[in-house]
């Protein structure tokens, strides 16, 4: 019953186009970002996901924790999403973790990252690098092929 209520509430929010006053900070964009990362993470890893975002903000923690278990450290997590500038040496080194970024230049220069979610020409983009998907044993659904690039 609780789940049904959640679904109904969620649907009503999805379709409510108007609002009276925005009393809380508008976080729909962050919520959609978390869903996109959620889809990518669940398609890339078959086990339960523990997400680590270096320098995570309070707002990000609140939104992301609705669909992810948030790891407090890099070591205890298996999916690392680097959104801000974070020293490379402070990221843990473990073959069983997946690294994702929001910076295309970082994706090109650092082969630790298997993909990126970033903006280009005012439009959001997703890119996965084919060789790094293979290296990390990631098998993405066919519908993701359009986001895969040979580099």
């Amino acid at each position, binding site marked *: 019953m609780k789940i049904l209520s959640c679904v109904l509430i969620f649907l009503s929010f999805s*379709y409510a186009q*108007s609002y009276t006053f*925005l009393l809380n900070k508008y976080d729909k964009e962050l919520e959609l970002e978390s869903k996109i990362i959620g889809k990518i993470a669940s398609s890339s890893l078959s086990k339960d996901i523990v997400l680590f975002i270096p320098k995570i903000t309070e707002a990000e923690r609140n939104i992301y924790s609705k669909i992810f278990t948030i790891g407090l450290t890099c070591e205890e997590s298996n999916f690392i999403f680097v959104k801000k500038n974070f020293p490379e040496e402070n990221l843990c080194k473990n073959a069983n973790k997946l690294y994702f970024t929001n910076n295309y230049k970082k994706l090109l220069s650092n082969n630790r990252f298997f993909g990126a979610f970033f903006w280009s*020409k005012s439009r959001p983009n997703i890119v996965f690098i084919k060789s790094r998907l293979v290296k990390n044993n990631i098998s993405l659904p066919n519908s993701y092929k359009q986001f895969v690039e040979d580099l």
Partner: protein
Amino acid sequence: MKKIMFLLFTFIGVLYADSLNNLLKEYEDNSQKSLQTVNEKLGHVLVYSQKELKLMQHNKLGDVLKELPLLNLNRNRYGLTSPSLAGTKTTVSGFFRLFVNDHEVSSIHTQSFALSWGEMPLDFVDYIEVYYGESSFSLGNETGIYFIRVYTKSALKENSTQLKTLYTDNNSFSQSLTHSESLENGWSYLLFFNQNNIKNEMEYKNELLKNDMKSRYFYVDMKKDTLGINIGFNDIKKESYMGLSLDLVPNNGELNSQDYFINVSKSFLDDDSLKIGASYNIYKREYKEDNDEGLGVLPLIDFTQPPINTIPKKYKENLKYIKSTGYVTKNFKTSNNQLLTSFHIKKKEYKLINRESTNLFGQVNSNKKFNDFNKETIYSFILEDNYTVNDKLLLIANSKFDKYDRNAYLKDSDETMYKVGAIYTPTENFGLKTFYTKTYLPPSFYNTEFASSLNKDIKTQKYNFYTTEAVFAFNKSKFSITYHNVEIEDFIYFAPIGFINVDHKIKTEGLIFDYKYQISKNNKMVFNYYFTKSSEDINNSDKGGYIKFMGNYSKFEYFSSLIYKNKFEFRPEDSNHISVDASYNLNVGATYNYNKDISISLKGENLLDKSTKSLFTDGFPGTNTAIKDFDRTVSLTFKLVF
């Protein structure tokens, strides 16, 4: 539980956004709504989203200002488009505060943004928020009635180079370049450069009022995490239009200005609750005008003798202003209370580089200071508390203490502002917002220089106003009514002999009706109507509104808008009365997107050629005359992104 929620979101995702493409589209659409910084507690808010600015082809700030409720956008004596509150017409107005990101850009001299930023291009602008009501509590220490916040595009979200060029049927053109990039080291930057060559002239008494303008704008926004650096520059060179000429038609005249600023801010702590910022602003203004029939440079005219003895026929001045600011702001949050404390300091300095006038007899007067008041430091302490009683009721209490430290004859003063308010949302479809505000507007350097010689000691204007807004929101519709009631003491009025404080209380009240209807996912209609009632004679439209429609289909974007300002009569009982017809400003435009990176747009403005008109006085004391503000214009824009 998290697993269930994750599965639930995945399930819903499959139902309604089953592909990453759909989610990306939804993410992009949401980003274009531009609601991320809206602060309902600041006042009654209108948002011009990124999507609306694009669909409506708003190319410059004036395009947005001319449709705002409760104000008129007219051309002033210098040919600049300048906003005035409904029912009034002011040459320069200090009621409006304009922010480019965190930096307040109004003139240090006049408190008006019309000269430097009134026609700012919007190519580098992401979205605009307009707040009606005193909002300076958390926005610094310049007070006002209308607060316009312009947010520039985020380099992180652009990552592109954009070229845009615009031509109009009267040979005006505008070109701009925007480049943005996010670097691997965490820095991102946005560079903007723009140049305009605007042709404009109006006919009066079989002579031309020349108003050509050349302007350049440069802007840099650099960011790394919570550190932001903004650098802005603009350079305006224009003809003087009527300038200060007593017969409204000068022999010739020129107005030049340059505005430079740098603004740095950084947030600290995990929740970014501590913010520190500083800015430095230099503003230069050069003016020269010749007129055989005389110039109304009021501070130079001695009214104790026949004015003809002191009226100048040539005038030039070169002025420099410096403004520096610093602030620290700390937010304290608990589950139902949010307290903001802030300390601001602002220092303004005014330097006379050169001033020279020649009277009708050819006698030259050099470097005359109009008065000695040229330095002002403002210290402000702000307390802002928002208390959430329950999920339906929010209470707001703001207070601000300002100390003005002035040199020369103008007295130092301590001012207090406060605002109490409530936001009540009993249902998802209905909301009420109400504020009672006590605020003030201090005299500017310009007010004191052009003060009546009978009393140079211009006092601060005091405002008490009460506003209430009711909103009804349904699935695709939103309807709001906003009531305002304003009382002003010591109103600063520009009389024929200079600025004076009006000796009685001025009252005004009115209503704004606003209705938005989302016709379909891609098409929207907005209707707005307002009226005001004032205790004083009106010299401008006091009723107005607009209806606009915008949308997109396939590769096309389109809009149309009709902006209405009512007919009015100035001093109907006076022999010198004048009647001005209603204005119907019809605008229509369309954009064809050849692909995602190339577009071409066509726009027609004021197609019915029924522009607003501005009242001016010809001669001294003179007769009243009304002159058209805007011409009919057709423009073609080409945009390339790479």
